[in-house]
């Protein structure tokens, strides 16, 4: 099972909005994945246990796994293209 890590400044505020939308979307299209939340400060030391990061903010350059920027899931403009990008990484 793939692991998706949702990242924002607190690991709570905007990432909860994104996490719920990503979970609902993955359930709807039938892609099995574990969705977890975290804060960007946790990535600074470079130990990440995930296959994909979906972030509402910048992530440190030391992160080597794929990152999808998901600001659109908060503003509500352009959600589809974010979901498509997530699907392409998890397929």
């Amino acid at each position, binding site marked *: 099972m793939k692991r998706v890590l949702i990242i924002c*400044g607190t690991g*709570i*505020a*905007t990432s909860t909005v994104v996490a719920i939308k990503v979970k609902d979307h993955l359930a709807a299209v039938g892609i099995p994945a574990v969705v977890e939340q975290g804060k960007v400060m946790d990535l600074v*030391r470079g130990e990440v246990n995930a296959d994909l990061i979906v972030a*509402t*903010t*910048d992530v440190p350059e030391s992160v080597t796994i794929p990152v999808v920027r998901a600001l659109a899931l*908060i503003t*509500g403009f352009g959600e589809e293209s974010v979901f498509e990008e997530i699907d392409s990484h998890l397929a």
Partner: protein
Amino acid sequence: MQGILEAISSYITTLGPSVVLPILITLFGLALGLKFGKAFRAGLTIGIGFIGINLVLGLLGGQVGPAAQAMATNFGVQLSIVDVGWPSSAAIAFGSTIGAIIIPLGLLVNVILLLTGLTRTLDIDLWNYWHSALIGALVGALTGNFWLGILSAAVHLAVILSMGDITAPVVQKYFKLPDISFPHGTSAPYGLLAFPLNWLFDRIPGLKNWDATPEGIQKRFGIFGESLMMGLILGLVIGVMAFPFQNPAEDIAKILILAVSLAAAMFLLPRMVGILMEGLMPISEAARVFVQKKFPGRKFYIGLDSAVAVGQPSVIATSLIMVPITLVLAIVLAPLGNQVLPLVDLATLPFIVAVMVAVFRGNIVRSIIGGSILVALGLFIATWIAPAFTKIAVDSGFQLGEGQTVISSLVDGANPMTGLFMAAGNGGTIGVIVASVVCLAFVVTTKIMLDRRDKKQEAAAETATQA
């Protein structure tokens, strides 16, 4: 009649936010067109979040409170006010009488300001209305007048929206976030104060061109970003100072229990607020869609939480260095009257500096100096508001451990806007009205200045194309 109202009010207080908010949120969700099941689940989730936060606050108050007292007696370091952080502040704010109605009130204020052109921001981040609710609750508690609390919350929100408008061009350019603004109670006031500081730094020789790179700082100070490690280390330090091995076996046990408890509290508090947030999300989504539908085709800034900017390397680097600086400031300023022991909000420093970093164009040295000045002043504000803050926490139904440890927070306790409204509340009705008039004058002045600036830019652009 008066008697009946008081009886109802006291009964609602007995029920507490974990019961009252699920009911209110369910009704509000239904009003926004959510299905009953979804609205009820959202409400109940919020109630559960409250109970979770209360449990962790009990742990924090019960463990850290007495240790901080003991540390004060042993070493004369008077840092006995426990910083319970933004997670607790948000819960206290939403659990207050103002918090119960802040979402419809905030939406109303934002819509009126948009219609009158007094703001350019549609704040879709309803979660952060709690900053305004906290201001309202503080003023309400100080004046004993619910309506003055409501007025203060509304005025605070208007000012924060204006601050979001002012800082928007800088935020958009620096963080590369087109059409976004940060009408965020934590970061916006500090961002505004960064403008005069930046002007000053430009005129100080030696400081003008001094900068540092974020990468090296991230590597060296990374540990300060990990809440659970920070909690453990702080717990050990406080423990050693509180229980200085008079009875070694017993004191070592106390120190270790304190260290793990503090790590637990700093790790768990944000998780618990996450539950609150999860419950609020269907409501705020429904409200966002509802309001965005009302303004089709109109162009405005989308107001977000500055959480979306926190990952920027200079913000991370500045915040990491600000952790030890804040602790040192708290100790150094203790003889001058600071009593706040920074704890949970050490993890929230990125939000204090986020907009400042953009104003300083990512210059880390300036951000650290500016941040230190404002946090140093903020510690005194946080100390000042602690008794009132503790009172609204207890009124909102939170248990703060034996003898009710005195609490405060850095994020909102130390905020200049909190200081302003604390002064207003102490001035009674007249104080609140004066503060409100000053704030509204600020909102109107901001609109006029921004309009003028835009006209100038348009004119300049036109001359440029003609030439």
